């Protein structure tokens, strides 16, 4: 048996080993780094002049930093969906996608934590959370669950990586040679014996079981940052489920994009097949329908009643200043992707990529709509404040920092794929074994 598959194993290994950046990869990385640098410069300005460089003021006291935070938390949920849920359900076809999903999760949750620090008026007092933390505050719940989720996600990325590290260390290919020290540091204890393999498998199973409730928590608690206030548009008992369904959708959309790009960039057509796009496409349709359902609940029911406090808010969304973004988010973020992916032809790689992009972009604007318009409709009129307090449009520094953080998350994913195999090698080999053995 060892003999019959040794060739395939070699080919697989060879195909999946990390590769050097091509010309496009270089440009891509350069652009991302440029975005990050501009963002870092903007943050330097913000540190110097505090939040006055933003367009946030007393009424709109949360802006795109917070919507970006919600976006990151949302997209990070995908790690648990693809890795944990599918693993536990014994869904085999998702194996090549697990690591993609997990690294998206890790980098997104990392930048979620960073952007929330960026939003603080006194970032240097972060330690106060530990000195004086009050468990009654939803922010503390968020700190706890996000910390836990980051930790579990890192482990869930790391454990399945161990067998691959061994392969990497054994490889003679030039593209991985210079990282040998890193591989040794991370995985030199891994011998791949029966006991180790069993322990690892168990650990991954335990992680999968624990990470699902934690994943639900991170986004539910994040939704409670809004739902625990009285504001129209936030004061909803529906918010936890609404946020989670949206999170699964944007995460799945993100995976569609990543699948397409990695497939193209690393010539992985053999591993990420059209079948994968087909299956992921179906999942996105399901999730988009679910999210649409929650949106109908979230907007139609209050709109039916049109309470005075909700009226101004909803009118502004449906037909006012925010109507273009609102309808864009609904159409591009949900309806058009459904229409594309519902057809078999739409689930081919290219249309699936387009649908994925629409989902993710729509989702970003959706988060913006959840945060900002509500704050423009306080219960008491906006009085005794300068005129510019009554509107909100992000300043260039805010844009730069927000875009920089998105670029940063992508950069982590890019570097990860440069250093580690983005598709699990050992697992793919094992699966190959199983299929040939049958």
């Amino acid at each position: 048996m060892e003999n019959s598959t040794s060739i395939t194993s070699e080919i697989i290994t060879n195909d999946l080993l990390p590769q050097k950046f091509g010309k496009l990869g270089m440009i891509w990385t350069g652009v991302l780094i440029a975005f990050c640098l501009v963002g870092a410069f903007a943050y330097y300005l913000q540190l110097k002049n505090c939040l006055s460089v933003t367009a946030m003021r007393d009424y709109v006291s949360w802006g795109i930093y917070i919507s970006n935070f919600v976006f990151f938390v949302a997209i990070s949920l995908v790690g648990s969906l693809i890795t944990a849920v599918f693993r536990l359900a014994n869904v085999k076809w998702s194996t090549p996608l697990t690591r993609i999903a997990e690294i998206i999760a890790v980098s997104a949750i990392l930048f979620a934590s960073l952007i929330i620090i960026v939003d603080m008026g006194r970032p240097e007092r972060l330690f106060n959370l530990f000195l004086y933390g009050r468990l009654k505050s939803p922010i503390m719940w968020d700190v706890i669950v996000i910390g836990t989720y980051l930790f579990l996600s890192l482990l869930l990325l790391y454990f399945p990586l161990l067998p691959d590290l061994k392969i990497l260390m054994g490889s003679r290919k030039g593209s991985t040679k210079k990282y040998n020290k890193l591989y040794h540091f991370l995985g030199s204890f891994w011998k791949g014996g029966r006991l180790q393999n069993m322990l690892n498998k168990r650990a991954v199973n335990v992680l999968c079981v624990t990470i699902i409730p934690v994943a639900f928590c991170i986004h539910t608690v994040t939704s409670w940052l809004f739902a625990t206030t009285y504001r129209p548009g936030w004061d909803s008992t529906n918010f936890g489920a609404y946020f989670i369904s949206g999170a699964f959708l944007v995460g799945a959309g993100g995976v569609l994009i990543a699948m397409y790009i990695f497939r193209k960039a690393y010539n992985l057509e053999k591993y990420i097949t059209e079948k994968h796009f087909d299956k992921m496409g179906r999942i996105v349709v399901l999730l988009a329908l679910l999210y649409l359902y929650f949106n109908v609940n979230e907007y139609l029911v209050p709109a039916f009643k049109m309470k005075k406090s909700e009226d101004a808010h909803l009118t502004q969304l449906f037909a006012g200043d925010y109507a273009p973004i609102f309808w864009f988010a609904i159409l591009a973020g949900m309806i058009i992707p459904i229409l594309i992916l519902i057809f078999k032809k739409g689930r081919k790689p290219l249309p699936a990529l387009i649908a994925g992009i629409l989902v993710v972009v729509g989702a970003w604007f959706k988060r913006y709509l959840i945060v900002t318009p509500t704050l423009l409709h306080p219960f008491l009129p906006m009085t005794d404040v300068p005129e510019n307090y009554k509107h909100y449009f992000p300043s260039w520094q805010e844009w730069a920092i927000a875009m920089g953080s998105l670029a940063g998350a992508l950069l982590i994913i890019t570097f990860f794929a440069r250093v580690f195999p983005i598709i699990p090698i050992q697992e793919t080999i094992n699966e190959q074994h199983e299929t040939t053995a049958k």
Partner: protein
Amino acid sequence: MKNNDTSRREFLTAALMAGIAGGCSSNNTFRPGEDQIIPSGEMVKLLSVDGEIIEVDKAFLKPIPELPPITNSEERIGIEGKKFVMVIDLSRCKNVGACKSECNHAHHLNPGQNWIKIHAMQEAEHTAPYWEPATCMHCDEPPCVKVCPVDATFKRMDGIVLIDSDRCIGCRFCMAACPYSTRVFNWQEPVAEKEIATQHYSCETSVPQKIGTVSKCDFCPDMARKGELPHCVSACPNGVFFFGDMNEDSVTNGAETFRFSDLIKDKAGYRLMEDLGTKPRVYYLPPVNRNFPFETGLKTDTIEKNNAK
């Protein structure tokens, strides 16, 4: 006030009062030099700092200009035995804005910041417009306190909600949570004279403002400790604001004093957004039988002053 014996006795009593219960408003016209103190022979018993009873000649008692600063933990507990309450009589307000400018001045607020906001209100198209000054409601179930992750905003035994700007991390969750939109953020380095800016921050005076932290109306507990009224109350020429203690069941605007419970009952007092369950400590008297028509408050100069950057 000349140097005769009776006035000196009066003054001494008043000075002692300032230390004990407050309520002293006499100025120090009497400033004896060290050498001028002549023992009066009249002794008073005092409790020393280490708990001994000592006797001192009355002539040696000096008024304390400012009460010694209190610690942060004392500031967090509040003034014992008090339950502060405010009543705002909407029938008297004509948007003069003296409350606001006095408050801004006393707390060294920056341009664009107002702790008191005077809303032009009209419930519905055909109902009467009126002016509604709004402070922090010092809610008994304060949403802002519930959400603060570091206990930087807190509720005291005497009912006051304060902010510890030395602890606030600037997350602004409290601003989102407060339904009365009363909170103000220091988006940039607050401008203040050097003596003010270098002071040690006190939760009770809310001075000096700190960059990247939140601030709001504090009910002037520093004034209460001195036995004086909050700045807005004494500044309003129309006596709109009444301040007092629920335990004593009395409120005053400086000129008139009412039994709090009677006032609320007789004038049908109410609180803002009762349905949210925040239980404000600020009560409003409805704008009926008004002293001024609404329009008098619309005079452009007042509006300009109020909207000044």
